[in-house]
């Protein structure tokens, strides 16, 4: 096993699958010679040539529209969207086409593609380089939505996403692209979609978190432990399909639930977790289900550090579940 950063694991996954399956192609803005603005595709054009790793014109609509056509025809596109904030020109192709191709054609045509995009705050990117819009995609039947929080998961989940027969939104927490390092198995390494991970076991309260929020919650859990609170952390890893059972089991055990995420609160994935718990585990609850998220404002620049959930806010959220 090699020690890698999260972004290196992303590159490794693409390289592995491109070697494995010559139907796999990678494209997007600046992914070729430059290797992507975050360098996630570095080395791929060199190894696989301009036919399999190439730059596109500046059109997300074109990137995803052509990716859908490729997938329908039978190759396996991995489309990079430079920042998730810039995906909206392609929104129609994603929600009206990729997500619905299998359903609307009665299964005659399918759309196995991966849309990779860095998302989230914490890099001083301000308004338009920081957003977390996973909820839009979770609300769209036909899409799978995957978010890794460790290098090993990044590789294993991305490989599963590339092999999946349906369109996958693979969202990469850019804040921890390089700050998180870990052991990553070489070559073939698969983490199935739809299986969550218990990040830390605990008995008093369940914290559900994903992406860059996982390590924040781990820090908070350490602090909470000092105060005598035993925190269980669950990283769902794929938001759709969701490992509901893992979450519900944990909440039934702890009786308390906090969800931590970066996005605005209203109709967020945090709301979804709260709704699931309120519908299916309410009789086990010993306190309110608390959402610790971004605020219902656009993403700021100067006050980013206040916008994003931090240890302080996670701890406060945890405390709230003890005050009935």
């Amino acid at each position, binding site marked *: 096993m090699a020690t890698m950063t999260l972004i290196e694991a992303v590159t490794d996954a693409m390289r592995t699958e491109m070697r494995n399956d010559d*139907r796999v*192609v990678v494209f997007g803005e600046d992914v070729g010679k430059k290797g992507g603005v975050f360098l996630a595709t570095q080395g791929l054009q060199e190894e696989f040539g301009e*036919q*399999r790793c190439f730059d*596109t*014109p500046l*059109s997300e*609509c*074109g990137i995803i*529209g*052509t*990716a*859908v*056509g*490729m997938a*329908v*025809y*039978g*190759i396996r*596109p991995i489309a990079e969207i430079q920042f998730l904030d810039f995906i909206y*020109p392609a929104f*129609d*192709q994603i929600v*009206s*086409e990729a997500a*619905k*191709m*299998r*359903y*609307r*054609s*009665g*299964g*005659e*045509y*399918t759309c196995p593609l991966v849309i990779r995009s860095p998302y989230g705050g914490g890099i001083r990117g301000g308004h338009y380089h920081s957003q977390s819009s996973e909820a839009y995609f979770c609300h769209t*039947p*036909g899409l*799978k939505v995957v978010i890794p929080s460790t290098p090993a998961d990044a590789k294993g989940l991305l490989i599963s996403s590339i092999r999946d*027969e*349906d369109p996958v939104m693979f969202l990469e927490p850019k804040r921890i692209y390089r700050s998180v390092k870990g052991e990553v198995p070489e070559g073939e390494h698969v983490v199935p979609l*739809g299986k969550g991970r218990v990040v830390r076991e605990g008995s008093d309260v369940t914290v559900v978190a994903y992406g860059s929020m996982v390590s924040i919650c781990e820090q908070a859990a350490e602090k909470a432990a000092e105060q005598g609170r035993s925190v269980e952390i669950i990283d769902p890893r794929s938001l*759709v*399909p*969701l490992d*509901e*059972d893992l979450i519900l089991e944990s909440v039934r055990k702890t009786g308390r639930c906090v969800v931590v995420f970066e996005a605005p609160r209203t109709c967020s994935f945090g709301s979804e977790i709260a709704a699931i718990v309120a519908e299916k585990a309410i009789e086990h609850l010993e306190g309110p289900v608390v959402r610790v998220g971004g605020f219902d404002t656009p993403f700021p620049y100067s006050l980013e550090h206040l916008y994003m959930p931090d240890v302080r806010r996670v701890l406060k959220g945890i405390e709230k579940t003890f005050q009935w």
Partner: protein
Amino acid sequence: MTTTQPPLSILQKDGKTAKDKDPNLPADQLKRLYETMVAARILDERGLALQRQGRIGFYLQALGQEASHVGSASTLQDSDWFFPAYRQPGIPILRGVPFDDIVNEWYGNDGDTSKGRQMPVHYSFRQANFVSVSSPIGTQISQAAGAGMAARIRGDDTVFMSYFGDGGTSSNDFHAGLNFAAVFKAPVVFVCENNQWAISVPATNQTKSESMAIKAQAYGMPGIRVDGNDVLAVHRVCKEAVERARKGEGPTLVETVTYRIASHSSSDDAARYRDADEFEAWKQRDPIQRFQRYLQRKKLWNEAYEAEIQERYKQAINDAIKRAEARPRPPLDSLFEDVYLNLTPQLRAQREELLSLEGPESAELGEFPL
């Protein structure tokens, strides 16, 4: 590039051809074109009638545009692909899709290839390489570009044909699709069927460009205008474009200048917004009649032949309708299939929820207004 010149014509009103322009296609090919156009028109008549009788929910005709799509589609090989819009009923007929498959889609019954998921005329025919039609205007354009890119990457010599209307030229995907196709030399023929109207908006208010074909210059590809009511002219222009694509010389934009004789759809009444004179003038240029006169001169058409094919298609379509009406809706649990390859736990639970309901289903719902 003949982008702003008058569109290329071959067939004259009287069935003669412009000097030296007769392509002299083989007789069986000419008859195949003719019969497909006739069949498409009969299909459209029956479709609208069923809607008017309340037997299907919606219909949308290609009346007057038969030459445009049959002429172009007939230049492809069976292994080539279509990324169609909703106004090319002749294509499945040309490709030999059984009328049952077509009509079952109107009824959204359990024989529908797309399992009753979409409104009438939003076909999907995998066997015919006829990609699932979607309602959002233009989305198929960039998809065709992508499929073309994929074929190039794989080294296949497949050619792709994508259809859209004058209104479709304003879509995001027109811009992105033509640009990507040109940059990546995708083997695609983009057929813009300019029928002069996008519901109630005339093409002259859709864009101020001199033509639709001239828009090709924005992407550095050839753009060609052709008389869309002239099946031989359409065929010739598209044949050349298909050859170019197959040779790896990249995409072409073809503008077929035609007219939407029908209202936009069964929900629309064009008389509310359209000039009767314009409409009457275009009716004189009927593509089937024009082609018929040509065939007659060639001794390939007579009244007995016409009666025979009319009868043949009417019978076949009516039989298909009869069978379609007898079929039930898709089964209840098909509602949850094909969202993904496999049911997720959530969908499985939701299916159980629905299956466990007791009491009568709610009555049929409202009417479609567009």
